């Protein structure tokens, strides 16, 4: 079966068009129609700056040749492009001859694939480096593709189809498997990585920590549990992709001091030490075949997938576009095909991301020259309209005054800007009704929270009637431009196009931009929806062969996949399909528990299809579209990189084949006793104090005076019984409340008598000095005994005794401070000092 498929490959017999204009859910992804009813690709406008010879040969004989002439031919005939060799009398084929466009057309036809323009010889040649006119062949290929698509789209109607191509038959390879026992190996996990983790990470990643943080890979008391938790953080195939290493090397997460760092955290040193241990551990593990008990599909790499070419973007009126396919270097090419190319020069902390894109960090920008940027002003001023379209992922939703795309001259002068302000997007367009900085801007409402720290499709349009409009993920935000109706006549053509910043470098935007396109028309809702639905980045259809499992000829589980960012792949829309249009699906063919594997190992996380449970065939399956198994998608971590990662699928069940997946075990981690002595006492908290004072004095908590005091001061009193959390302000608040209770108690004869007896009643306003006399007097005993009893002379006699001595001293002290002090004042002072003391508040 496989060999037949392989032969078929060679003879291109195993190809079958998957008509993407058919109505089906998956067509939203596959759709690539360029005719009416789907995704028309319209002709780019010619820029006035394109430089070509005046054509004096025979006119184009029909509309298609005319389209060829306008869209492709006049772009390739310059001598620095194809016309330098493939001109008349030059190297064959002479598709770039400038003397007769009709003959050039005939020569070009064999070089163009009508069904899949991306596979056209012209595209493949320049993409392979053949006489590319810029430094990056991928930019030439993209530009050539645009020209060809424009030609085809502008000519006769055509329906683009995706041709699924069977990948080479290959088995899922082996890989390094974690030894079952952490103490086994040379070196073992116990002797390599584990000591570093327990030494430096157990402060948090340890269930016995004061601030435990999963995963508990640094549990010093349970190596088995720690080993299970550590495995997802270690990449045995690529140690420097291990999370343990990355956290230290790139994210500076809790680095530790090393011998050479004089006590300071040393991230490079920490990372190196970690990498050395992981590498040693990984090197000691041999590559073993894939687990033979798994039920697996054939394997396929990303680039062995069928390219989901083109999409169905609206690209009419495009005047600059950046797909960021180059992936390296310091230039991001404008592949709109509209000259002059406004290529961007990357500066500062900007880096390429996998799956096409640029990541902008602090101090970064990508800027075009002012001369090349001038085409924007020229062409937009001609039409009076424009659109900026971007696929962008903000790093966060806190950044403000952050320009994603700007065509401007300074912080205060601009032609147009698409920016982010926290969770809002904003648009600035200089016009006759704004200042030179384009203010007042259009800002999305905060309630919508338009900006998210996720990949978003953002479009800013401008036309004189509506002014600016913002669309996020294909949806108009509904926000109205405060300054519509202006003319763009005052635009300045000396400004520069810049991404991720302002030309001044003072409007930094951080995040990832995966595509930017600029148009000189205001895209309408349908066009924006179309481009949003087309998505961004290169997508592939990955065909995982399952014929031996299903018994169905040339059958596959087809995923749509792409590189999602530098660190993961996106897999979505799994579909069962046979490339044999006559294949029959057996009844009750069950598929369950599908997991994605990479390089011989199941991905440690992101297994969104592990719960899949489907029955194949029947009315759910059609020969044209197969059978969608799930509308879900997931992200799978990159291991060796897009060029080398080999994916496979495993199944808990596929037909009669089954495998029991074993989840990682739940290993109990009983708390480790900490016998460090802790305080045996605590402080009464706020409401306990309030109720305690109420009980001791007899004053109800609803008493107006104390209730007001309590409500005003309760939050200043202890909220927790921890003695270590007790502060002086809490004592002050307690004293204030005790003072209130004592005052209210003294003011009530019944409560006063209940507390002190009647001995004070006749002398409340008498002088304290004279009334209380010297220590040991019976008058003093009235107060001292009352307070000692309240403290609890029975329950805590020592405390009561201490209070008695202190109260006695206080009664002596008060008249010394103020000779006019009354009995009431001195008693309240003594009461307050006692009831607010630790004798009462300590529990």
């Amino acid at each position, binding site marked *: 079966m496989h060999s037949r498929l392989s032969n078929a490959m060679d003879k291109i017999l195993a190809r079958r068009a998957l008509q993407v204009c058919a109505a089906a859910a998956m067509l939203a992804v596959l759709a690539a129609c360029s005719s009416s009813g789907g995704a028309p690709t319209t002709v780019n406008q010619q820029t006035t700056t394109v430089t070509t010879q005046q054509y004096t040969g025979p006119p184009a004989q029909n509309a298609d040749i005319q389209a060829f002439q306008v869209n492709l031919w006049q772009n390739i005939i310059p001598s620095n492009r194809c016309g330098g060799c493939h001109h008349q009398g030059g190297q064959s084929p002479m598709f770039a001859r400038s003397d007769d466009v009709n003959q050039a057309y005939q020569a070009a036809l064999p070089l163009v694939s009508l069904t899949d323009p991306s596979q056209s010889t012209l595209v493949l040649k320049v993409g392979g480096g053949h006489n590319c006119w810029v430094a990056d062949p991928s930019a030439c290929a993209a530009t050539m593709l645009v020209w060809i698509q424009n030609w085809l789209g502008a000519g006769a109607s055509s329906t683009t189809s995706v041709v699924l191509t069977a990948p080479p038959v290959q088995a899922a390879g082996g890989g390094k498997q974690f030894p079952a026992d952490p103490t086994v190996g040379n070196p073992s996990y116990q002797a390599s990585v584990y000591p570093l983790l327990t030494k430096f990470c157990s402060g948090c990643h340890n269930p016995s920590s004061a601030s435990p*943080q999963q995963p508990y890979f640094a549990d010093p008391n349970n190596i088995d549990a720690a080993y299970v938790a550590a495995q997802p953080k270690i990449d045995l195939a690529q140690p420097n992709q291990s999370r343990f290493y990355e956290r230290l090397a790139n994210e500076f997460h809790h680095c530790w001091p090393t011998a050479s760092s004089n006590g300071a955290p040393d991230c490079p040193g920490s990372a190196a030490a970690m990498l050395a241990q992981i590498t040693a551990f990984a090197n000691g593990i041999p590559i073993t075949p894939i687990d033979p008990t798994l039920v697996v599909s054939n394997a396929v790499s990303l680039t062995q997938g069928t390219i989901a070419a083109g999409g169905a973007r609206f690209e009419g009126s495009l005047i600059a576009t950046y797909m960021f396919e180059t992936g390296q270097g310091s230039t991001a090419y404008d592949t709109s095909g509209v000259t002059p190319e406004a290529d961007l020069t990357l500066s500062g902390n900007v880096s390429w991301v996998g799956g096409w894109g640029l990541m902008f960090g602090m101090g970064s920008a990508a800027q075009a020259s002012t001369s090349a940027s001038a085409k924007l002003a020229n062409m937009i001023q001609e039409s009076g309209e424009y659109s900026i379209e971007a696929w962008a992922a903000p790093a966060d939703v806190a950044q403000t005054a952050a320009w994603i795309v700007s065509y401007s001259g300074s912080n205060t002068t601009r032609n147009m800007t698409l920016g982010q302000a926290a969770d809002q997007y904003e648009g600035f367009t200089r016009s006759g009704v704004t200042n030179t900085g384009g203010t007042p801007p259009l800002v999305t409402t905060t309630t919508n929270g338009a900006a998210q720290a996720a990949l978003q499709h953002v479009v800013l349009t401008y036309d004189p009637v509506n002014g600016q409009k913002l669309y996020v993920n294909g949806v108009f935000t509904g926000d109205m431009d405060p300054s519509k109706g202006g003319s763009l006549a005052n635009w300045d053509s000396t400004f520069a196009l810049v991404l991720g910043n302002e030309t001044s470098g003072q409007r930094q935007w951080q995040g990832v931009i995966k595509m930017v396109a600029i148009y000189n028309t205001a895209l309408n809702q349908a066009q924006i929806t179309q481009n949003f639905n087309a998505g961004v980045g290169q997508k592939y259809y990955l065909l995982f062969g399952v014929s031996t499992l299903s018994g169905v000829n040339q059958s596959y589980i087809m995923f749509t996949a792409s590189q999602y960012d530098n660190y993961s792949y996106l897999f979505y829309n799994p579909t069962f399909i046979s490339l044999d249009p006559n294949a029959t699906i057996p009844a009750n063919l069950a598929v369950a528990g599908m997991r994605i594997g990479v390089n011989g190992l199941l991905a440690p996380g992101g297994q969104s299809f592990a719960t899949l449970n489907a029955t194949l065939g029947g009315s759910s399956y059609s020969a044209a579209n197969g059978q969608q198994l799930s509308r879900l998608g997931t992200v799978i971590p990159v291991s060796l990189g897009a060029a080398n990662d080999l994916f496979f699928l495993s199944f808990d069940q596929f037909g009669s084949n089954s495998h029991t997946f074993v989840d990682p075990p739940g290993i109990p981690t009983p*708390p480790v006793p900490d016998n460090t002595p*802790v305080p045996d*006492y605590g402080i009464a908290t706020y409401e306990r104090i309030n*109720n305690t004072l109420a*009980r001791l004095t007899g004053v109800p908590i609803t008493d107006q005076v104390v209730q007001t005091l309590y409500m005003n001061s309760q939050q200043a009193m202890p909220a927790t019984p921890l003695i270590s959390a007790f502060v002086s302000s809490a004592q002050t608040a307690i004293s204030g409340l005790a003072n209130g209770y004592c005052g209210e108690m003294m003011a009530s004869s019944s409560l006063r008598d209940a507390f002190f007896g009647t001995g004070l009643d006749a002398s409340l306003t008498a002088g304290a000095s004279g009334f209380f006399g010297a220590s040991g007097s019976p008058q003093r005993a009235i107060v001292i005994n009352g307070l000692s009893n309240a403290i609890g002379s029975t*329950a*805590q006699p020592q405390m009561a005794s201490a209070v008695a001595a202190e109260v006695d001293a206080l009664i002596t002290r008060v008249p010394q401070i103020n000779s006019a002090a009354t009995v009431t004042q001195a008693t309240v002072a003594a009461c307050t*000092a006692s009831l607010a003391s630790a004798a009462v508040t300590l529990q």
Partner: protein
Amino acid sequence: MNVMTTGTGPGRAPRATLTACTLLLLAQPLAPAFAGPNEQAKRMYERIAGIPPSAAELTQMTNAICGGPCAAGAAGAAPGSAGLLQAATVATGASSFYNVTLKNFSMPWTNRSATVFAPLNDYVATVIGMVRDNVAFNTALSADILYTSNASGLPAPSAANNNHYATAEQNGVDLMSTLVKGTQSGTYGTPGAAVAGLITTRGAASAFFINGTNRAMFRFTMINQFCNDMPTLMDTTRPSDRIRQDVARSPGGDSRIFLNNCVGCHSGMDPMVQAFAYYNFDATAGQMVYTPGQVQPKYLINATNFPFGFVTPDDSWQNRWRAGPNTVLGWSGGLPGSGNGAQSLGQELASSATFAQCQVSKVFQAVCFRAPVSSTDLATVSSITSSFTSGGYNLKQVFQQSAAACPGS
């Protein structure tokens, strides 16, 4: 300084002096911990009831400790002894145990900032009532139960405001004697299928069903009733199929954040939070909204963050933590681990071993003023947990046992 001139009213003593005086007392060397029956009784009472005992209560407790009137110089009882347990029942019979201790104990569970400084609400009142009436606490997250006060002068309980409870607190109403057991369906008119114990009280709904995505209800239930916040529960190995569309898979362009962090919580949380798919709290109307059969829009927001994420169709939930590392949470073997709605999820959570351990740990810490970390305390908590789960989930008994376990020595 004339200290008497700063007084603000009759009998007010100046604070500066008072503070100095009290600090003097605080600075005085404290006597070593007492072990006598008086001290044990006073401590147990204060730890449970929050205030000092009356003389009569003290005597009642010391008699229990000594098995009759204590002889002079009698030693206290050993921690956990029957005498101490009996003495503790005196303290749990005090109204301030309900009005103060239990209120402060449960109030932080009812708001996002975990503050105790919040008005009394139906959540707290229901906890207090359940403890008073010895209602099995493992029904706390599922039962159709609600406690209101029958004190005079209070506004009627309402699903649309908290006035009934706030006024009760303001009036100093004794909750122990006035709380009356009722139902949420009867008092609030909540549909029976929508009731899930404390989860669907107005107090919880107003704090955790308001705005957002309803994940807060799950997270705070974990914090308050499982004694675990999400960082200690995360498990990156669970299938990610039920993670909703609003969770970005590449936040800021870095999918490592999702694969190493976000997925750890959301893969387990989102399938369970689905139980709350029909709930919302309408801040304008001031009451919980329940829309049977209709998923709340909050479950479907930000769908373009990851279009291939899960789209919530109903309120069916699954406990994915029944497999993998979180099996150690001790799920009940008698339950299926899946269902529809908050009530069955509440049963699932409250039937776990971790729920029971958490309740006991919380009570132990509240009574003993320390987390159970020593080997002795851990053994004590384990023992109390066993009797809690086997003895009808009586939380009042846990207070008594905890107080008896740390009476001072």
